[in-house]
């Protein structure tokens, strides 16, 4: 009787299993050392980047016209430190300090600025064979120093934010937030500690970049999102009217036992408003009904396409904007019809960052296609080689014809006889301007937030803007004229 095949016969099978296991290990090694390598090596938390940040002279940060926004100087003992052009750009540019780490663009591009990460993969491949760099690459941004200064000046003592971007490419020209702080004070090792402590304790939170991280109730500027969702999903058309709307102007609209009241457009009387008219006079009732018709699922879906519900793809960190706190049984996470109706005109639990609302305007301005916002446009290394960061699309939100209706609506909101009552000061003389103002009630005592989003020229937009002034009162009071001044300055500066 043969006692079965001997163990020696099965050894090859075991060998194969082990060879496979080692093959998987080699694949794992290639994953971290080749595939994910670039991402890890350029991260601001990488040990080599951190070491370089302390020893290497950082490259300059420049604005769109080549003005220096951030530069390096040497202290008496030879260690490099950073100086900044103007507190107006402190929020997007950030600071870099040995003691307090880094923020803003200084942080996001630590690897490139210190030469540790390098610009493009092919140069980085051979960079290691060259002697290590003592100075990093320069960072070219889309920011405009003069416009940024103007934005900060116009905001004055108010807290708020201004975002201006080119809807065709996503380049961000202005990312202003007040109050500002002096980043040079932090960069300079002699003054760093006392300045930083003081800033941290300041209750106005000057270190907070309101443009990207401030979440505010948007009020009527959010109606554009509702319109996008309605038109995009087919629930609304430019001609949509609601028979119950004129009547509800007086008595209010009852939704599930809750009464929604409208604002200040008694002059429309019995007119049944359509999309363009409702936008022009900022009709809450029309939009509440439009939102209910569109439904939570569509509203949520289109809002997500615009960037709501998560961080935005951007050079510096952003806070997610939201439609609702979520957890509700209705599609989209709304608690009930009342919340959905309120959200449709920008109240309820809706919170949006100024950057997010600027993207909404940019999407409409760019014919329905949303471009990714960008601060950095190019990197110039020590040898003078430039690597550009190209524009990227976030996707098509609306098709061209639906988008055209919105453009018309927003144009009327600024240029129309009735519209300009709500957006006084936003129009740029000689340029067809489009936009939407907003007054965000935040409950309790105190003024509401003042909002404006818009773009110009309305027929071929080259610039989009979002402005918020905290507690700035009715939209017409602060945000609209501020936006108008910014837009005028932009066009004045064009050749």
């Amino acid at each position: 009787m043969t006692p079965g095949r001997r163990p020696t016969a099965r050894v090859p099978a075991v060998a194969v299993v082990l060879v496979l296991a080692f093959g998987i290990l080699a694949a794992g090694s290639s994953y971290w050392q080749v595939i994910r390598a670039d991402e890890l090596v350029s991260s601001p938390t990488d040990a080599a980047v951190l070491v370089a940040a302390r020893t290497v002279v950082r490259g300059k940060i420049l604005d769109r016209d080549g003005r220096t926004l951030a530069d390096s100087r040497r202290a008496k003992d030879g260690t490099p430190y950073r100086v900044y052009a103007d507190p107006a750009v402190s929020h997007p540019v950030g600071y870099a300090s040995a003691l307090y780490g880094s923020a803003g663009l200084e942080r996001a591009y630590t690897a490139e600025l210190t030469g540790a990460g390098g610009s493009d993969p092919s140069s980085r491949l051979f960079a290691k064979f060259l002697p290590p760099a003592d100075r990093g690459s320069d960072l070219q941004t889309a920011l405009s120093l003069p416009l940024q200064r103007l934005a900060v000046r116009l905001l004055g003592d108010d807290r708020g934010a201004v975002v201006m971007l080119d809807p065709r490419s996503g380049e961000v020209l202005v990312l202003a937030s007040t109050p500002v702080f002096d980043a040079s004070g932090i960069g300079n090792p002699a003054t760093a500690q006392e300045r930083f402590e003081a800033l941290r304790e300041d209750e106005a939170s000057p270190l907070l970049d309101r443009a990207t991280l401030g979440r505010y109730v948007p009020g009527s500027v959010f109606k554009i999102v509702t319109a996008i969702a309605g038109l995009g999903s087919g629930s609304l058309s430019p001609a949509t009217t609601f028979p119950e709307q004129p009547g509800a102007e007086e008595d209010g609209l009852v939704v599930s036992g809750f009464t929604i009241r409208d604002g200040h457009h008694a002059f429309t009387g019995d007119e049944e408003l359509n999309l363009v008219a409702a936008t022009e006079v900022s009709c809450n009732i029309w939009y509440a009904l439009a939102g209910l018709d569109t439904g939570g699922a569509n509203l949520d879906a289109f809002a997500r396409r615009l960037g709501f519900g998560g961080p935005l793809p951007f050079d510096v960190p952003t806070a997610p904007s939201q439609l609702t706190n979520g957890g509700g049984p209705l599609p989209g996470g709304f608690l009930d019809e009342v919340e959905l109706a309120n959200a449709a005109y920008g109240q309820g639990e809706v919170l949006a960052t100024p950057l997010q609302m600027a993207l909404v305007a940019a999407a409409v301005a760019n014919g329905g296609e949303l471009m990714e916002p960008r601060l950095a446009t190019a990197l110039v290394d020590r040898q003078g080689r430039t690597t550009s960061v190209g524009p990227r699309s976030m996707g098509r939100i609306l098709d061209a014809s639906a988008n055209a209706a919105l453009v018309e609506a927003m144009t009327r909101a600024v240029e129309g006889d009735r519209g300009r009552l709500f957006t006084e000061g936003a129009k740029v003389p000689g340029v067809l301007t489009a936009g939407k103002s907003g007054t965000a009630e935040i409950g309790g005592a105190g003024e509401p937030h003042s909002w404006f989003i818009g773009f110009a020229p309305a027929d071929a937009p080259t610039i989009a803007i979002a402005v918020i002034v905290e507690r700035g009162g009715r939209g017409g009071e602060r945000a609209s004229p501020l936006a108008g001044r910014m837009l005028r300055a932009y066009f004045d500066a064009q050749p």
Partner: protein
Amino acid sequence: MDAGLNLALWVLRLAFLALLWVALALMARALLSDVRAASRDPAASLGRLVVIASSGQPAPGTVFALDAVTTLGRDLGSSVVVDDPFASAQHAVLTFRSRGWYVEDLHSTNGTHVNGAQVAGVTALGYGDEIGIGDVRLRLERGRR
């Protein structure tokens, strides 16, 4: 750091990595040549052992294929299990080297016989010779080609 020093460093570093792989390649060659030698004639066995006479197990007429090293004995772990009362657990080992067969008695109680004569230590064998273990006789024959 000057460029010359940097260059020298990298020459050494790359040479180090290259030499590591040279050493590995040499080891791999050793592994492969062994494997090749072992699988040269997978179908043919080196030789066969035919049971001429036995008191029970293995039955007469049984044919065992032989490897380069074949152990014979009562132990179930042996290559050829000889279940005879006069066989030791580890009785003998039959090996093939340099194109020749050798049998070695492993200090068995009753000894190993070749063609009737008891042998001690390592003994050369030829095809046709009979190995005696206890009452079992096995004949060495050529392998199948």
